[in-house]
């Protein structure tokens, strides 16, 4: 597997401009001769499909939801970063770049991150142009708030629904193009395989989820924007249907999978309450602007929070990280919560929780201000827990939230399969070993609105116009036959255990062994046990119904089957990375409870190559050369 990152030469600030200037273009009259299929319509996919179509390419967009507007980008609450420096507080492209690289614990590619910071400003302009109702000040100008891992206020927001508003903006751009007949939109359609012709990605096989019919879609290039794979853990803040199938199938067809073990555990989620639970709910990081995290100082203190005097409380983030306090980055805040719970100082029935307390902020700013800022979040908390967080502190605990790992891409966002581009959370490129808050929305829209339109042309220019293969070709028929066989196999087992049962078992295994803290013995155990669980799945799963109509059990079974393969790769990756960095905390490599990086041996992206069902995958590396930033020990103290 050849890993050429294709980073343009020259000074960091000029790389992107120079790349645009020197990249090959497709002439306007030729653009309509190219067909691009975009899979997924979240922030990255919808913005890419709309923009590529505006440029004149023929675009087909598919999503498994009943409409493009439902993708899980919609659930992002807090905000989107941009280096506008509207606050005059010392922000700049360089600072956003540096914060992101440092936040990622120096495991991201410098040039990509710098480009992200450069285009961030244009995203806000674009979204305002579309009518996204961002929060404003009385003078009519845009408001900002602070987020973890930054000492400036650069986060733009729309109440607690920023993701929703940005997605509806991208969806409106998509709808405009669909209405104009420039995009073929196929909702209720799930990609089940990638078609590779002569070593290049030339289409997909997808299933119409309402009718069960398989579709072969041929294209000159394939764009995957299918999000992250955190649902491998079963319990996460992801939407129930988010899955890894598209990227996993592409991986099996030859796309390298980078840093699969890099999973973000978000510190502020509502704790697990029972075995029936289907998902975990995030409480926005913005709450840490005014909420203070604490646990009792004494082990096993079961008093009600109000009964614990100030002197007997441990405001552990403020104590451990005085410079950033409650706004310490996510990986650090999550680990700190785990540590105090491991010390038996956790709160709530299970002892797996910490308090997020607003009483100081309410005393300082008044109840009304807190209501105005976070009212909807307090309401959500109340609905779920039946507790009033204005009167008693919230209980929170970390939960799986995002995956920094994903398919490997070069500077053009092209995977190791020529013609296959990967955008947004589905790729690995910008967040290193930890993502900062409000950066996922930024990356999704940067990739879709500004990066892919300026890089895909370089690839298409190497393809003869009109050379797109027929969807009846041999490779397409073979891929469809594979998909059909797999569906028949799933429906043919007719075993005794439910799909939920397997998903829960996998989730527990992964959370215990490849979650917030990892160590060799546990990872080796998981690598031994996952294949057994997988085998049991294929022998004893019960998938009711048929292939030829709407069958939600079949949909879920296929996704869980892929998770059962991906989970093993995550553990292998975590085992091979013998250092701690960002979210990846190996207990063997720590210094006073903090990550101990090993830049000598692990300053690289690990890229895995699929070798076949019963063969161990091969690990390749892309060295991360830091030319412009000095790798430092990440400190928020």
């Amino acid at each position, binding site marked *: 597997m050849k890993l050429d990152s294709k980073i343009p030469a020259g000074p960091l600030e000029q790389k992107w401009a120079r790349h645009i200037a020197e990249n090959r273009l497709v002439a306007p009259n030729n653009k309509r001769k190219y067909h691009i299929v975009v899979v997924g319509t979240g922030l990255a996919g919808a913005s890419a499909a709309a923009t590529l179509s505006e440029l004149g390419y023929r675009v087909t967009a598919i999503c498994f939801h009943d409409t493009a507007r439902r993708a899980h980008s919609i659930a992002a609450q807090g905000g989107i970063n941009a280096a506008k420096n509207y606050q005059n507080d010392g922000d700049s492209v360089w600072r956003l770049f540096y914060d992101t690289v440092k936040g990622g614990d120096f495991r991201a590619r410098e040039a990509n991150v710098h480009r992200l910071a450069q285009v961030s400003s244009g995203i806000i302009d674009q979204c305002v142009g579309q009518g996204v109702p961002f929060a404003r000040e009385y003078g009519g100008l845009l408001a900002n708030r602070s987020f973890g891992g930054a000492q400036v206020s650069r986060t733009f927001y729309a109440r607690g629904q920023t993701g929703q508003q940005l997605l509806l903006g991208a969806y409106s751009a998509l709808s405009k193009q669909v209405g104009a007949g420039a995009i073929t939109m196929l909702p209720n359609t799930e990609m089940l395989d990638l078609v590779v012709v002569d070593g290049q990605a030339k289409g997909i096989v997808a299933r119409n989820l309402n009718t069960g019919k398989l579709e072969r879609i041929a294209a000159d290039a394939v764009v995957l924007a299918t999000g992250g794979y955190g649902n491998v853990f079963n319990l996460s803040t992801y939407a*129930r249907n988010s899955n890894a199938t598209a990227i996993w199938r592409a991986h099996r067809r030859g796309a390298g999978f980078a840093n699969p073990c890099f999973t973000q555990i978000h510190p502020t989620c509502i704790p697990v309450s029972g075995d029936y639970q289907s998902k975990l709910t995030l409480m926005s990081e913005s709450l840490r602007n005014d909420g203070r995290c604490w646990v009792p100082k004494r082990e096993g203190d079961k008093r009600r929070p109000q009964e614990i005097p100030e002197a007997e409380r441990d405001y552990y983030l403020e104590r451990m990280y005085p410079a950033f306090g409650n706004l310490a980055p996510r990986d650090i805040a999550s680990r700190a919560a785990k540590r105090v719970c491991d010390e038996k100082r956790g709160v709530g029935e299970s002892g797996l929780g910490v308090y997020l307390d607003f009483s100081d902020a309410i005393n300082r700013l008044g109840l009304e201000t807190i209501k105005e800022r976070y009212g909807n979040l307090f309401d959500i908390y109340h609905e779920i827990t039946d507790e009033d967080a204005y009167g008693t502190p919230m209980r929170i605990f970390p939960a799986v939230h995002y995956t920094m790992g994903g398919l490997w891409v070069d500077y053009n966002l092209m995977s190791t399969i020529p013609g296959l581009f990967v955008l947004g959370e589905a790729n690995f490129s910008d967040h290193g070993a930890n993502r900062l808050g409000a950066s996922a929305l930024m990356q999704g829209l940067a990739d879709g609105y500004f990066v892919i339109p300026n890089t895909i042309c370089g690839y298409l220019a190497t393809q003869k116009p009109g050379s797109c293969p027929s969807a009846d070709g041999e490779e397409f028929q073979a891929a469809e036959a594979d998909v059909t066989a797999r569906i028949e196999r799933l429906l043919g087992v007719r075993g005794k255990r439910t799909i939920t049962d397997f998903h829960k078992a996998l989730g527990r295994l992964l959370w215990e062994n490849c979650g917030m803290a990892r160590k060799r013995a546990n990872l080796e155990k998981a690598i031994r046990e996952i294949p057994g669980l997988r085998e049991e799945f294929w022998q004893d799963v019960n998938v009711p119904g048929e292939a030829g109509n709407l069958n939600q059990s079949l949909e879920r079974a296929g996704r869980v089957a892929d998770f059962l393969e991906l989970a093993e790769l995550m553990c292998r990756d975590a085992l091979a990375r013998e250092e701690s960095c960002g979210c990846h905390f190996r207990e063997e490599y720590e210094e006073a409870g903090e990550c101990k990086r090993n830049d000598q041996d692990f300053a690289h992206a690990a890229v895995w190559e699929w070798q076949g069902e019963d063969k161990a995958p091969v690990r390749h590396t892309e060295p991360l050369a830091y030319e412009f930033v000095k790798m430092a020990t990440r400190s928020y103290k």
Partner: protein
Amino acid sequence: MKVTLKVWRQQSPNSAGRFETYPTPDLNPNMSFLEMLDVVNDDLTRQGKEPIAFAHDCREGICGTCGLSINGRPHGEGRGTATCQLYMRHFTEGQTITIEPFRAGPFPVLQDLIVDRSAFDRIMQKGGFVSVRTGSCQDANALPVAKPAAELAMDAAACIGCGACVASCKNASAMLFVSAKVSQLGLLPQGQPERHRRVLAMVAQMDREGFGNCTVTGSCEEACPKNISLAFIARMNRDYAVALLKGE
């Protein structure tokens, strides 16, 4: 706790549907309504029966996928919440709960509790946008928007497109949905150039899809999980009248 479910079962769009009754296994009052259905479905699967098809995704009240009529009310009892934000603690031991899909002519049933809401997409495609090309916008702060207007636009923009407004309306009117988008963009300077064209095109498509008209009963506002106000319908009617007079 245990409850009894009376659920609408329908194999396919063209087959006849019927209610079926299922006793639930033991439930925890802290379960969400959809988690209760998960548990019931696993139980049905174990018994060799077909699980109940229902649409759901984010399970935090923002994606708009879930939509069940519970005891005749879209999204069930309680204001300002979607089906996925409803918890079993609001029901009583032994209660019989009737679950149906959103009922409306323009929302045909696909299977069991899942309906086809693609009519909403087609309305949006006629004008639910500002025609700006990527990369062509000026600096965001070059366009000040008064805070009250921005806040009101955000109130309208909060719509999640679930269709509860349609399901709750005796005329199956989509006016609340359409007026939310028309108002959001009409309140902002960015939306002005296409303001008249937009309202005419979206309303025309709404009519073509077979949604009924508004008779201001306010049931939509009552059912809306995002508390979208009926006042937006008045705003849209005003815009529509002005657009008719002035033309595009």
